[in-house]
């Protein structure tokens, strides 16, 4: 062995090839099988992709680095089930490019956040966290009240469709209009949002003001959608209890 290495270390491209082989095996063994995951993990029938408004909120969540302090992955541990809710399934994030499972909980996990608090609470909490949670160390986000830029939304949906998220042609062409309509329950387009994304999509003025479409609308819509895109985790947990 030593003799072999004695000779190998005289040949630079030999070392290069050996390093590439040695460093490839582990990755191939662990990653490649995950691409056959469709055969082992079912994507639930009721799983819906994010609406354009929620997707815009998700981009804000990413832009502000929320994932650095909040995970979205409930582990299968008793205390996490008691604190947050059903453990997260692989299929729940099947449409998430990128996933936002996170790695640190400076703040709590958000995978089951949707519906836990009112829209008003979220708006107040984002503008001034310490006004509702005095001991919070979360940054304040007063600039969320600015208008939402919807110019890229159509192209965003089209790009996601190309990497496998089930957005169809009308969803893509109506993306910017749907984002407006989801925050205006009385508008003509509101029915179109429900028609395209399903009846359990929340259509309301998330920031309390239907006249303006703001980043706050998008972010709150996204936060309220967390954990509500499919019923599967709740059903699996209920089956287990029986």
């Amino acid at each position, binding site marked *: 062995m*030593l003799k072999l290495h004695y000779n190998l*270390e*005289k040949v*630079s*491209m030999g*070392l*290069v090839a050996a*390093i*590439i082989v040695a*460093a490839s*095996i*582990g*990755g191939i*063994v*662990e*990653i490649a*099988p*995950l691409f056959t*995951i469709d055969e*082992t*993990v079912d994507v639930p029938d009721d799983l819906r992709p994010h609406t354009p408004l929620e997707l815009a909120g998700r981009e804000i969540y*990413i*832009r*502000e*680095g929320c994932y*650095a*302090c909040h*995970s979205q992955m409930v*582990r299968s541990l008793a*205390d996490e089930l*008691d*604190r947050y809710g059903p*453990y*997260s399934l*692989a299929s*729940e*994030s*099947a*449409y*998430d*490019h*990128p*996933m936002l*499972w996170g*790695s*640190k*909980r*400076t703040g*709590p996990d958000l995978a089951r956040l949707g519906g836990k608090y009112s829209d008003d609470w979220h708006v107040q909490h984002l503008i001034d966290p310490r006004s509702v*949670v005095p*001991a*919070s*160390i979360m*940054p*304040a986000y007063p*600039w969320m009240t600015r208008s939402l830029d919807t110019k*890229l939304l159509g192209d965003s949906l089209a*790009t996601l469709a190309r*990497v496998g*998220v089930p957005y169809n042609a009308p969803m893509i062409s109506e993306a910017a209009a749907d984002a407006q309509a989801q925050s205006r329950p009385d508008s003509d387009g509101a029915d179109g949002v429900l028609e395209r994304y399903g009846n359990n999509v929340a259509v309301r003025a998330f920031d309390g003001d239907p006249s303006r479409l703001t980043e706050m609308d998008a972010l709150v819509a996204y936060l309220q959608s967390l954990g509500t895109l499919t019923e599967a985790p709740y059903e699996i947990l209920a089956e287990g209890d029986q």
Partner: protein
Amino acid sequence: MTSTLSISERQIGLLLSVLLILLGLTMAAAARHGVMAAHGFMALALGLGLVFILGSAIYDPEPPKARMTRYYDAPTRFGIMMTLVWAMIGMGFGVWVAALLYWPEATPAVPWTSFGRLRPVHTTGIIFGFGGNALIATSFHVLQRTSRARLADSISPWFVLLGYNLFCLWAVTGYLMGSTQSKEYAEAEWYADLWLVVVWVTYFTLYIRTLARRNEPHIYVANWYYMAFILVVAMLHIVNNLALPVRWTAAESFPVWSGVQDAMVQWWYGHNAVAFLLTAGFLGMLYYFLPVRSGRPIWSYRLSIVSFWGITFFYIWVGSHHLHYTALPYWAQTLGMTFSVMLLVPSWASAGNAIATLNGAWHKVRDDATLRFMFVAAVFYGLSTFEGSFLAIRPVNSLSHYTDWTVGHVHSGTLGWVAMIVFGAIYTLVPQLSGREAMASPRAIEWHFWLAVTGTLIYVVAMWNAGITQGLMWRAYDENGALSYSFVESVEAMAPYYLLRTIGGALFLTGAVICAWNCRATMRAAMGEAADRPLAPQPAE
């Protein structure tokens, strides 16, 4: 820079600078506004600056012919300067974000001073800015000395260094403007990622071409590590960053991976950025500078071989230990845990080899703060690899994951191991490259050493306490079977540790500032160049 280049090399440099200007113009014109346009202007400004520097010196006299019989150290000197600049930026932002966790309203609530945007500036600034520049700069030095040959050409080292720093600049300014891929330690946007690939290919080519000119039959072990660093980082970077831009004229993109695949790819990348950037590269540094400084040969050649291939083969498996109890398939978690534990063997073989090398030179460790930096680095390397294997064990991970224990572990590696070995290497290199016996202020090295050690210990111990407290509070039940603590109670319990961590970080930063000042003073008082020479004269160009 210009005085070390021949007239034809200056002309090539000028041409490349013009191409950079065109690239910047194209980006700015295509994007019109937003982050990508701002980044186009940055490339444009860099290109204009280079045109000015090269253009004003284009007809200066040729450098002496004898330069080909010497090592090319100007890029190393520039790389060390950038290392120190990024050290202050990265550590400065680190102290800032640490303080924000204790005083959340310490800085005004405007977008670019928000914790979530500052935090990746800290991580990228340290890992890529500080660590990456240190690796590139020292690799040029080590490669030449161990090959006893001059760098293969004089243009590509500058292309690598300037291009790499442009990448770092694009990355951190992008975060501040709200542009990020959100993939941890790979947040830079798609065009920055593509640019880094170009830089990296140049780097690898330069490395191989210089090795091909070596006047030593064997490739020294430090180079194996530097090569593993270059090759595997390229592989990780490309696979993890595969993404489709929303438009060719916008910074936004979506990764091709989603959900559980994305999580596995991300942590395969994330942990191996630790392995092949923060470990392999710096082991290369250790394997060269520790023997040089202590005047002792590496204790065991066989152990070097075993630990090198052990690290290269085992590390790549362990990323999945970041995903215990998650929706990642159980078998993949188990593989990650198993290999993490096995990884302790080659890791401790390296640490042990380094410490055993110091046998017979312990009096130097006592008297020489520079060597002491390297010794402490080897000790912290041993400690944090043990801790890493321990934290990867599933039940331990159930407590530690998501807590500040992980943060403490990372900093025991980055402050205790990575930064210490970098400072040891810098204090060895800077006097040598300045033609001097010693640094301008040897006392300042002592001050730096003790500030660094104290800062690291305060930081790491505070985070251990923080993490274990958090983990225990989250899982505590009262006698009625209900959770004992609300989440926010665990946040309140962190306050003293977050304050201590800020103090520890500030001490470490102070040491780095002293180091930068000392290096500047030494370089300003330079008495010449490095005295050593390549073995055989190179043929004239």
